[in-house]
């Protein structure tokens, strides 16, 4: 009996170690592309061909970044991505928190029906809408414009759902008290709801910012000219046009990924909250 027990403890130790090794190997595999892209962006063209590959940049150089700036509109692309992401983020947060408040706390005819209809659009896949949306953009003369890149993104069922779920948890007594004090509905929203819903708004904001930075397919369709390209689109085109070397492509990839990784590391709690808020059943 005693022997069996120590044996099982030993076995569980071995399993535990195997698990740790597995996790570590996977972590390396998952992080490696980022490390490799970053290192590659500082390598000279000659170093890219070195065998064995240089796992550390032995002669780090900024030449890839300089060439990228000189040969392409990468600064403009970065600016475009920032404009599109910030605008989408602000609009989605505004629209979603307004609607979320109404669906969570106000009473009006058809409220739940409208809410469930809205949520059911989550099931609509983007690809079915692609062609009609593109034609709509042509009709509105929004092809190759900021409006075309931003406005169709503001219908975000996930945002409405998330804000409603969160605002529901705010005690109605607070709202009642404010109303009795003579606060209008708009006043309640600005003075009570928004401050209390900050964590959810924050999570949604970060979520939308990252999502829109990475909205490859739509931006690919709408950004027609060099000057309207976003960063991911511009960099992806470099590969397809075979104009530049891998070192410059890695410089572009780093420029595109780094802001997102920094935001993610800084706000990881918000991401986790956003994802779990969206996943729990309503």
């Amino acid at each position, binding site marked *: 009996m005693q022997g069996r027990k120590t044996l099982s403890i030993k076995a569980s130790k071995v399993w535990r170690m195997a698990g740790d090794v597995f996790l570590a190997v996977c972590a390396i595999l998952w992080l490696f592309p*980022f490390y490799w892209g970053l290192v590659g962006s500082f390598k000279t063209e000659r170093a890219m061909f070195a065998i064995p590959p240089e796992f550390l940049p032995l002669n780090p150089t900024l030449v890839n970044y300089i060439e990228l700036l000189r040969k392409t509109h990468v600064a403009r692309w970065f600016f475009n991505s920032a404009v599109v992401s910030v605008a989408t983020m602000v609009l989605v947060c505004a629209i979603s928190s307004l609607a979320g408040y109404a669906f969570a706390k106000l009473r009006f005819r058809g409220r739940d029906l409208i809410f469930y209809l809205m949520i059911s659009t989550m099931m609509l896949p983007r*690809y079915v809408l*692609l062609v009609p949306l593109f034609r709509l953009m042509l009709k509105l003369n929004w092809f190759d414009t900021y409006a075309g890149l931003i406005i169709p993104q503001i219908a975000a069922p996930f945002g409405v759902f998330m804000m409603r779920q969160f605002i529901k948890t705010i005690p109605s007594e607070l709202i009642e008290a404010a109303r009795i004090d003579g606060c209008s509905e708009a006043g309640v929203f600005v003075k009570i709801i928004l401050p209390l819903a900050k964590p959810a708004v924050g999570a949604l904001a970060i979520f939308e910012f990252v999502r829109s930075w990475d909205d490859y*397919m739509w931006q690919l369709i709408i950004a027609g000219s060099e000057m309207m390209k976003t960063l991911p689109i511009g960099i992806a085109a470099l590969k397809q046009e075979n104009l530049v070397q891998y070192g410059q492509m890695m410089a572009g990839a780093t420029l595109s990924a780094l802001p997102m990784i920094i935001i993610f590391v800084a706000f990881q709690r918000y991401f*986790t909250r956003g994802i779990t808020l969206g996943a729990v059943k309503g």
Partner: protein
Amino acid sequence: MASRTWRSLKKDLVGYAFIAPAVLAFAVFLVYPSIEAIRISFYKITPTQVAFVGLQNYAGLLKDQVFGIALANTFKYVLFIVPITLAFSLFVSVLVSSKSERVTSFYRGVFYIPAVASVVSVSLVWSWIFNPVIGIANYLLSLFHLPPVNWLAMPGIAFYCVVLVIITWTVGRPIIVYTAALGGIPKYYYEAAEIDGASKVRQFFSITLPLLAPTTLYVIVITTINAFQTFAAINLLTSGGPSKTTTSVIYELYQQAFRYNNFSYASAMGVVLFLMVGIVAFFQFRYLARDVEY
């Protein structure tokens, strides 16, 4: 009486005012395009004319060999991506959730990073890794005295390379959801099972798995929907090749619509795929949601 209806009308109007921006955005950018997508699929649209053609686009799809391949590939993507994502993320989450909060959050971050970093960046790095001449994948092979492989240009290999890259960004969200759900399972369930002499494996299958059922359903459904929409990795890594082995319905839809201006044909593709996804999601709910309590 009159004042009461006035008051309730006013209440309605306040509510409508708050939801008006959302309703407008949804109507114009989600509802209208989906109706339009179905309508377009019954027309033939060229730059000069628009003509009703009935089911001609759908009949064309039936005869279209490339579409057949794309459809089969799409299901193949789903069949690889969904089970691997599910098993991997569940396994990692269980391993990670027994660790301290700091370690858990580190691993959650590591596995979620590819999902936040832009798909373009990640795909470009992988295309360099897989480059037959200067890629590190072939260097690793050479260490074992294996001949180089043209990873993204070999039928039979390219598909699995694309799947691998996609897996790196599909597991992040499930791991976050699973670790959160695992944290919500009361410790004393396991303590009681321990006293009863249940092994760790037994505990996993009798306690953990059943309690995670709602989360698992969620993970399966979102991963399936995403796997059906595989586009970016294909466009950036293989362009659907070699000989169409990595193409998907979305990739062909994109080609038809935005390379050949074949809007109506592309719309028909979208509608067919939408129906497929709908049917699959229906059965997933039907058979998996049975043991899920909400």
